[in-house]
């Protein structure tokens, strides 16, 4: 019962920045608990990944390696982490609230007979009992709950940007290679194929133009695309986004979705067209530098969080705006 553990993740084959944030969070907790912080790299070949985090003040890096851990098959990843936790009995286990964390953490917590809190934005140690106080937005961000759970390990997933990324330090972590006890029979879900799709990376946009429930026809998205095209001549990288109803209608793929279960972004300019401003959407775009709302409902929430508002029907306004920009 001696360490804070965290799962290392990669993005496009390289160390994910989210892991550096976790290391910062984990280090702070470890300090309060008077223990060390260690990390786990999972995969079929983890040498390079382990090296890439060896100079961030981690006590140990566990290389959890097995041929079955190639790619990400949740069944065996959960099995491998369960195996490791039963060996080293960590006090705290941190995951990023990422694709992998969301899938693995609940199942692992169940197998270790402990309760998990997901999507935390703050963590601290209760000096009374050494348990984590987990801060988590609920009701889409309308309230912030702080809660505790009794079991061990104390296990959480942590939202992106909850901690600043850690900086490299002097010294090098011990790297320990381990081969978990896994077998084919653990795989209950077979992966048939992975199909890459062209994914819109909204976090790389300077300007996001987003449509919502107020967009009445699928064809009207063309107006937003025309606006994006017109703006891209002067305002950098302009991308098309949306709120949830547009994805529910299957008009745009989910990589365009901004909000709690889509992208959380902070572009220079966010233009919300026909978006009323449900809180689940607002949490995804509220950090934008400038927010412009175009809506016919003067009472809608989007106007309350916007810097500029245009009370107009987009059908008349957007083409007029495109024309002005092209003049």
């Amino acid at each position: 019962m001696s360490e804070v553990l965290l799962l290392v993740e990669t993005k496009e084959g390289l160390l994910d920045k989210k892991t550096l944030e976790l290391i910062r969070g984990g280090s702070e907790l470890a300090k309060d608990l008077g223990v060390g912080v260690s990390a786990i790299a999972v995969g079929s070949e983890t040498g390079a990944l382990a090296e890439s985090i060896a100079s961030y003040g981690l006590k140990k890096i566990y290389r959890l390696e097995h041929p079955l851990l190639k790619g990400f098959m949740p069944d065996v990843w959960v099995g491998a982490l369960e195996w490791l936790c039963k060996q080293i009995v960590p006090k705290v286990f941190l995951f990023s609230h990422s694709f992998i964390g969301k899938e693995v953490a609940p199942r692992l917590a169940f197998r270790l007979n402990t309760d998990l809190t997901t999507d935390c934005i703050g963590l601290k140690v209760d000096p009374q009992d050494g348990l984590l106080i987990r801060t988590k937005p609920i009701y889409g961000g309308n309230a912030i709950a702080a809660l505790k759970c009794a079991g061990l390990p104390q296990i959480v997933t942590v939202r992106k940007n909850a901690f600043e990324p850690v900086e490299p330090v002097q010294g090098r972590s011990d790297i320990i290679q381990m081969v978990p006890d896994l077998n084919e029979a653990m795989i209950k879900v077979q992966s048939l194929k992975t199909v890459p799709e062209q994914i819109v990376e909204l976090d790389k946009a300077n300007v996001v133009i987003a449509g919502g429930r107020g967009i009445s026809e699928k064809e009207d998205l063309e107006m937003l695309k025309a606006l994006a095209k017109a703006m891209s001549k002067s305002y950098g990288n302009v991308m098309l986004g949306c709120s949830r109803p547009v994805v529910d209608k299957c008009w745009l793929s989910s990589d365009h979705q901004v909000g709690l279960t889509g992208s959380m972004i902070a572009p220079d300019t966010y233009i919300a067209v026909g978006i009323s401003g449900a809180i689940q959407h607002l949490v995804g775009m509220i950090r934008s530098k400038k927010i412009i709302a175009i809506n016919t409902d003067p009472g809608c929430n989007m106007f309350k969080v916007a810097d500029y508002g245009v009370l107009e029907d987009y059908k008349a306004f957007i083409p007029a705006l495109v024309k002005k920009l092209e003049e």
Partner: protein
Amino acid sequence: MQEMNIIVCAKQIPDPEAPFSNVSVNVEKKEVLVDAPDVISPYDENALEAAIRIKEEMGGKITVLSMGRKVADTVLRKTIAAGADSLILLEDPAFERLESRSTAYVLACAIKKIGAYDLILTGRQAGDWDSGQVGLILAEILGIPCISLARSVKIKDGKVLVEKTIPVGYEAVQAGLPALVTVSNEVGELRYVARTKMLGLLKRPMTIPKWGTKDLIDNVEKLSKLQLVEMATPPDMRRACLFIEGSTPQEKAGKLAAVFKELG
């Protein structure tokens, strides 16, 4: 083709699309008050839609399970109107504010009581606490395959085929039955339920079983409640909105274009 026996888990929550001005926090009582009607959690509606499509193709039966301290059949009868066959309410004061693991345990007890099933569908997460745990843990308890974040669910040759949303696109996966799938909104929204149909259903006498702890669990001690330390209001998000004035859309467009130029 074998008919499918599908269970859909659906949570009743205050409308998550309620304007934020209708939500308040009682710091003393550590409660969130939402001044909005209750609805079925949106991702659970997506799960129901996925179930109905399977039933349309293969035939079968859809049972909806809903659990809470107090669940209203007036809200959940919408699932019947949309195409589910039966509804079971899991209702007990002991079911309030449970940890996800305990919620999954109660659902698992109810599913064992129901008996035979081929497929369990849940939403990827509930629209109130957004924990995203119950489906995954339920599959663990039942010891069945678990697939998360489905954007399409199909049954073929006694297996469930799922297109699962992943960060770079999608992954096609399959598993033997019975299995549990958590459904994401890319599946599509729940079909429209006509108001007249809904009203008719509300009047129709219907047997809706209500199961509580005594029907499901030998020991309430097994359920752990959320331990709330604090409930706080979020930082204020409001900004001072400058409305672009003008008598025509064209005039306003000209002014907004000038704002863009100023912002750079």
